[in-house]
């Protein structure tokens, strides 16, 4: 095989045994790689109703066919898949850097990790040699410290490491898996799945050659994309970066502020991408093979957090900033560093702190409940202290580390309504009350509240539709975007490069064919995108999800936007949501309960999975 390594590594932590199996061309073609292949392999290797923290919940690490080549942004990504401890449905998260390319050179398309080690270990994949090494001395260390320690003891600087921090060790449901210090497989709590297996890190060294099937044409395409990467399609990422969104969203009144109490932040100027770049961005760096480079490294030059260094993006800046009512960039940067240190998804962490602040201001949590912290919105010390407590699971942090949904249930007294999540995953920086295409995308997203499963906000934010209107046709728009996004995360290419695929699926099909030597058309690829979304749906149905889970956070449906301005009063009603869901399910060929029909599965050549949905075909 070209592109694909053709091999899947199985690791059993119970026995310490490993084995290698072949990747079938059928799976490669149908599920592409990354999250698509990962989800299929997860389904094949798990049983219904498995607890996310059970040794029987496999953790799947999967690469795309392009990994390891020099195609810009495509060489470097990797995906983790497992049942999510946050949503109890399918969890997946993608990260970039250099880790994915290294694993491909080691000769694997996927690693499936089952069981639980007796004591803390790390997995050392050195080409064909696979070992479990003692990690007792690494416990309590941050992912970055762990990476350095492993490189040191294995004696090779170029080893690539993905590791969890204390949050993952302590089974925090917002724990992530971090590689190369600043790159996180962030969402859906997969760091805790790793922690539940007593697996502290995965270290990789690969020495094999990567060669595309059609080298000359491939290099022509690389050349062409290097040019495209210098053009307007990537300009945002090369200049201000995603924090540019702060002022854009704020002007449109679609930036959730103070736990969704507002949709507009009066001090947005102070935390804008412009301010960040002016005062804090010290360097912009790149992942392996990327000709665009986007990673904005920020350093705090003075004041109480002097010397703090981290990567900064819009979502995390938003969550730790405006969403908590905080207008001090240096404190937001410090907050981000704390999240990286403990290995927490900074989006979820910020949303949870804002939730705690909302509970405090509404008298649901007292100062005593909060270990003496006066958790008003905008209080910088409260933000940083609560993040620390969450990272260590100390005091109130122990409850908050359960994620906003479970924390809301545990606290009670109406706190559930202040917990802004979908399917148990915390919201991201788009006010869904006034972005109704995005609202549908978020509601049906298989991993819970997230913009990265569909990117449907683009229609609303760019004014391509009436963003306040719920109407027929949005279902197909979301569906088509979902298919492309699923492919992006299966290939794996970077979402920031999506604009360089001028002919979208046609360009992607060409890339796939040149690398793998497997003839692929845009139409067949589109089918794969649909198939990947369908398998995610099937997994969620097997785990007990139905239409009722395709819903929106409480405030989105019950608290109209109060701010004077263009979208005052906007809210999503149940009626509107139902209209959108019906439209979406219809466009997907699913039942009104959101269940893929047996006929649809046949069409997608997935009828081997029909038994999961057969008894749910009514309605």
């Amino acid at each position, binding site marked *: 095989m070209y592109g694909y390594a053709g091999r899947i590594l199985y690791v059993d932590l119970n026995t310490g045994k490993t084995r290698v199996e072949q990747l079938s061309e059928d799976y490669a073609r149908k599920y592409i790689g990354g999250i698509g292949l990962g989800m299929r392999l997860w389904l094949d290797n798990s049983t219904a109703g498995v607890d996310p923290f059970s040794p029987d919940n496999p953790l799947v690490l999967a690469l795309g066919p392009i990994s*390891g*080549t*020099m195609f810009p942004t495509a*060489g470097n990504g990797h995906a983790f898949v497992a049942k999510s401890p946050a949503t109890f449905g399918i969890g997946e998260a993608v990260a970039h850097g*250099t880790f994915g390319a290294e694993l491909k*050179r080691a000769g694997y398309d996927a690693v499936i990790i089952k069981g639980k080690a007796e004591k803390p270990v790390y997995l050392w994949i050195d080409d064909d040699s696979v070992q479990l090494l003692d990690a007792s001395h690494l416990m309590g260390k941050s992912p970055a410290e762990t990476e350095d320690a492993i490189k040191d003891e294995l004696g090779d*600087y*170029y080893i690539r490491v993905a590791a969890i921090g204390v949050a993952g060790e302590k089974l925090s449901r917002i724990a992530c898996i971090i590689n190369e*210090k*600043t790159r996180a497989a962030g969402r859906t709590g997969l760091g805790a799945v790793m922690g539940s297996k007593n697996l502290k890190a995965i270290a990789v060294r690969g*020495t*094999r*050659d*990567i*060669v595309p099937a059609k*080298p000359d044409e491939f*290099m022509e395409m690389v050349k062409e994309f*290097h040019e495209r*990467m*210098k053009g307007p399609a990537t300009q945002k990422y090369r200049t201000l970066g995603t924090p540019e969104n702060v002022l854009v969203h704020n002007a449109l009144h679609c930036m959730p502020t103070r736990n969704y109490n507002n949709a507009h932040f009066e001090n947005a100027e102070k935390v804008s991408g412009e301010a960040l770049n002016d005062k804090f961005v*010290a*360097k*912009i*760096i*790149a*992942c*392996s*093979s*990327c*000709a*665009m*480079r986007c*990673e904005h*490294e920020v*350093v705090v030059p003075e004041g109480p957090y002097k010397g703090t*260094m981290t*990567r900064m993006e819009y979502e995390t800046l938003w969550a730790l900033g405006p969403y908590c009512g905080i207008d001090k960039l240096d404190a937001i940067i410090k907050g981000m560093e704390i999240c990286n240190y403990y290995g927490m998804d900074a989006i979820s962490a910020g949303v949870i702190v804002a939730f705690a602040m909302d509970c405090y201001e509404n008298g649901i949590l007292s100062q005593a409940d909060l270990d003496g912290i006066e958790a008003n919105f905008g209080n910088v010390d409260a933000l940083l202290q609560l993040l620390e407590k969450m990272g260590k699971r100390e005091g109130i942090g122990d409850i908050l580390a359960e994620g906003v949904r479970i924390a809301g249930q545990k606290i009670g007294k109406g706190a559930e309504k202040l917990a802004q999540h979908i399917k148990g995953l915390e919201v991201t920086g788009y006010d869904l009350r006034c972005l109704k295409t995005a609202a549908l995308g978020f509601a049906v997203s298989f991993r819970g509240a997230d913009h990265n499963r569909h990117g449907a906000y683009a229609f609303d934010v760019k004014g391509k539709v009436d963003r306040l209107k719920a109407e027929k046709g949005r279902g197909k728009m979301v569906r088509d975007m979902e298919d492309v996004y699923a492919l992006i995360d299966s290939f794996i290419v970077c979402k920031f490069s999506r604009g360089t695929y001028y002919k979208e699926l046609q360009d992607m099909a060409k890339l796939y064919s040149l690398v793998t030597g497997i003839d692929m058309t845009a139409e067949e690829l589109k089918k794969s995108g649909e198939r990947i979304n369908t398998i995610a749906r099937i997994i969620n149905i097997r785990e007990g999800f139905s239409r009722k889970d395709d819903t929106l956070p409480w405030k989105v449906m019950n608290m109209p936007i109060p701010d004077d301005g263009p979208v005052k009063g906007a809210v999503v009603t149940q009626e509107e949501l139902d209209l959108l869901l019906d439209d979406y399910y219809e466009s997907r060929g699913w039942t009104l309960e959101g269940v893929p029909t047996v006929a649809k599965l046949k069409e997608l050549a997935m009828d081997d999975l029909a038994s999961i949905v057969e008894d749910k075909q009514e309605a």
Partner: protein
Amino acid sequence: MVKIHERKFVSADPEKCVGCQICEYICSWTKEKAFNPLKSRIRVVRVNQLANMAVTCRRCEDPPCVAACPRDALTQSEETGTIIVDMDKCNGCGWCIEACDYGAIMLHPETKVVHVCDLCKEQGEPQCIKWCPEEALTLVTSDVLAQKARISAVKKLFQEAKKK
């Protein structure tokens, strides 16, 4: 013999280098028709997120790698300063690797003899320079490097003076 002042080599500007490794990919592709950093004659180092730099052969005067070779497998081209490896004589002992202050001469993972940058003699120009998206790599002489350093030092001085 080409004088030290005229001898050109590939130099990375750490201000511009972003650590993307495209130089590694294109080097191993050019030399071996494979993507594999271990087969690249230029290697990227990221000390931390802020400190990125690609490193390759500097074509030193009286190169220590040549002096260190116990088998006379290495010679320096009088014309260009390139280190020439005699594949038949080199047995991969690694003395040259130990002698190089830059880690710029490396052991090939398969042939087990050393390899080093030859400025893409066959292609006529270094491909890493051609492909670097940040224009961080340039073909320089030590004189040019020194000039550049002087200019940026003076610029910096004036900027700081202006601030005050």
